[in-house]
């Protein structure tokens, strides 16, 4: 027994070292391979360094509640005195560690998340996480819940309807959210009062406002900030103190406003503008965004659940009584959600086309993790919708492994070159 647990410890220590190396390497790329990073970004770079390279908890927090998808209403968690932390993981070392739980052809994100939860390797608040909320989204996430439970976590299954347009779905989801609110109070031992809920909503809304400002600044031409930095900002929202995060995003926005006045360009002035969509970019698996920007493109917007889908849509309340507030929160986490698990994806098509227009995108890069069925299956209908609008799209199937970098760089470069050539001819 003794020697067995020692090997286990050794394995975990090994993984941790691999992860620190992985995090360090990507951080270095993000910081040093690009000139003129905004000053406010240093705060975010440091956050990752502290958490993943030094293994420190992000901040002092109580009642840490892990969340596994974008459909978990944070307002309710904050109102119940909890701290939501998004657990979706981007480490290749965790992907390898998690491979033992999943079939061979499955999603890197789910594997990495399982790997992380199992060895608590890059788990933020590693010593504090006990409860995990798992929305019943895709099959792989759903079934992962059983394994997470076996690892010793308390898993709350948040039921999600498979369609979102119908009245039945809305009622089903509202009820699911009400049940969740009741359960949360039991977990934290604190009541969700009207005032606490109001405060929590204001806190989340302030963060969203800051994000939306950043989002709209990215529509500027020339680009004021690179997409790799925008992903670093939204990824930090997974684990950072929400108020600190909001403050620094506001500082960043001011810095970008200043850049705008100075007619500063974060990329080459004629860099093709890219809209990024599909399987989420999560640190340190930012290989595609980094490759795009190293190849002379600039990501000006994204439609990702690690970023835009997580922060863009704000709760709209009609009546400020608890019941209506909870119902409004529920609606906001279902109606605008463009997650591909829902059977109709007209919303996602519309959103991508309108974002491409609004952000003057020259092309779309669609990332699908190998083994992620929903994004892979949605690809052809999205491709058709974009094609009908004359928007070129590059579909890239990849995973967390770094061994396809050579191939990917050829593809990304060829895509960027074709966008440049297309624009040259238009002129």
């Amino acid at each position, binding site marked *: 027994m003794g020697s067995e647990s020692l090997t286990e410890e050794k394995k975990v220590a090994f993984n941790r070292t691999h992860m620190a190396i992985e995090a360090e390497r990507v951080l270095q790329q993000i910081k040093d391979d690009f000139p003129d990073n905004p000053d406010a970004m240093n705060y975010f770079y440091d956050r990752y360094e502290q958490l993943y390279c030094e293994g420190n908890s992000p901040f002092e927090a109580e009642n840490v509640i892990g969340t596994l998808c974008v459909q978990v209403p944070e307002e309710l968690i904050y109102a119940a005195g909890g701290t939501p932390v998004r657990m979706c993981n981007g480490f290749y070392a965790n992907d390898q560690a998690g491979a033992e739980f999943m079939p061979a052809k499955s999603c890197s994100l789910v594997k990495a998340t399982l790997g992380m939860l199992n060895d608590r390797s890059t788990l933020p608040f590693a010593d504090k996480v006990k409860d995990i909320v798992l929305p019943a989204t895709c099959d792989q996430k759903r079934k992962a819940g059983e394994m997470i439970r076996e690892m010793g976590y308390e898993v709350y299954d948040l039921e999600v309807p498979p369609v979102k347009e119908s009245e039945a779905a809305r009622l089903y989801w509202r009820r699911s959210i009400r049940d969740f609110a009741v359960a949360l109070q039991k977990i934290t031992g604190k009541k969700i009062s009207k005032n606490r809920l109001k405060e929590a909503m204001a806190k989340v809304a302030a963060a969203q406002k800051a994000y939306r400002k950043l989002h709209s600044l990215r529509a500027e031409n020339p680009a004021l900030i690179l997409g790799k930095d925008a992903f670093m900002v939204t990824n930090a929202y997974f684990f950072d103190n929400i108020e600190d995060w909001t403050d620094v995003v506001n500082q960043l926005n001011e810095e970008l406003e200043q850049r705008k006045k100075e007619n500063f360009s974060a990329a080459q002035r004629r860099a093709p503008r890219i809209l990024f969509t599909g399987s989420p970019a999560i640190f340190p698996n930012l290989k595609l965004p980094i490759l795009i920007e190293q190849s002379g493109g600039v990501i000006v917007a994204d439609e990702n659940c690690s970023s835009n889908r997580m922060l863009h849509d704000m709760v709209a309340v009609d009546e400020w009584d608890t019941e209506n507030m909870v119902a409004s929160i529920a609606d906001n986490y279902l109606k605008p959600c463009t997650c591909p698990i829902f059977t109709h994806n007209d919303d996602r098509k519309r959103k991508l086309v309108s974002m491409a227009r609004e952000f003057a995108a020259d092309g779309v890069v669609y990332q699908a993790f190998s083994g992620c069925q929903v994004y892979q299956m949605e690809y052809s209908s999205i491709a058709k919708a974009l094609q009908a609008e004359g928007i070129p799209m590059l579909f890239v199937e990849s995973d967390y492994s770094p061994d396809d970098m050579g191939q990917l760089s*050829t593809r990304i470069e060829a895509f960027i*070159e074709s966008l440049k050539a297309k624009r040259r*001819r238009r002129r």
Partner: protein
Amino acid sequence: MNYFAGIDIGSTAIKVALIDEEKNVIASKVTSTGSHFRKNSIEALHGLVAENGLDIDNLAYMVSTGYGRKLLKEAHESVSEITANAIGALEAGWEHGEISTIINIGGQDTKAIQIDGYGTVTNFAMNDKCAAGTGKFLDVTARNLEVDLEELGEYHFNLKAAPLPINSTCVVFAESEIIGLLADGHGREEIIAGIHYSIAKRTIRLAKRIGLDGLVCFDGGPALNKGLVASMEDELGKKIVVPEFPQLTTAIGASVLAYEAYLDEQEIT
């Protein structure tokens, strides 16, 4: 007189093409990549220049492409092999008409590229990281069957019966499948033709993702294999254009881009 170089550093071979100001190919060379491909690229270039009595000082612009493109610091710039291939195929195939789709099989990649009349890439598809159905596959087959790579085409056409179905697409598993077929007493001809059809099927399926309208050009080293070309035509159901030097198309494309970049620079200064 100035001339322009395109160097295509692939996983298996280095291809160098030199063109003059009329875009005529004045010299070209194919050598094996080896492990020191930067050194080998420079040697290939200098060798080619010397063999043709040219002066290296008249080399006005050089563009690198292929897997090793970024490591060749001597080049003025690099471009992805997809862009270079498109330009090269348009140049190489013009006498047959306007190429609209290129199928390229390299040492470790298969690509299908759709281009417009200017050689601009409008769409493309590429195999994922697996090297199934690429040049490497033919390489391994030839080795297993103890046949020279150059002889594969001949064996293909010597076949009187039907080609065998080869089911494995993975190089490693195909190897054991071939050994099994040999053990069962099957001849080399039927195995070789079977492999050609298996590669062709896989390649055409990839190319269908971007459509296969208009004139189709097939290039890259494996396009030298006439048996494979015939299988591709059968699978596609129409004639395919193969450039005279299919291995060199991408290098020629890079040299044309070098020439154009040189002209742009002249305009600016």
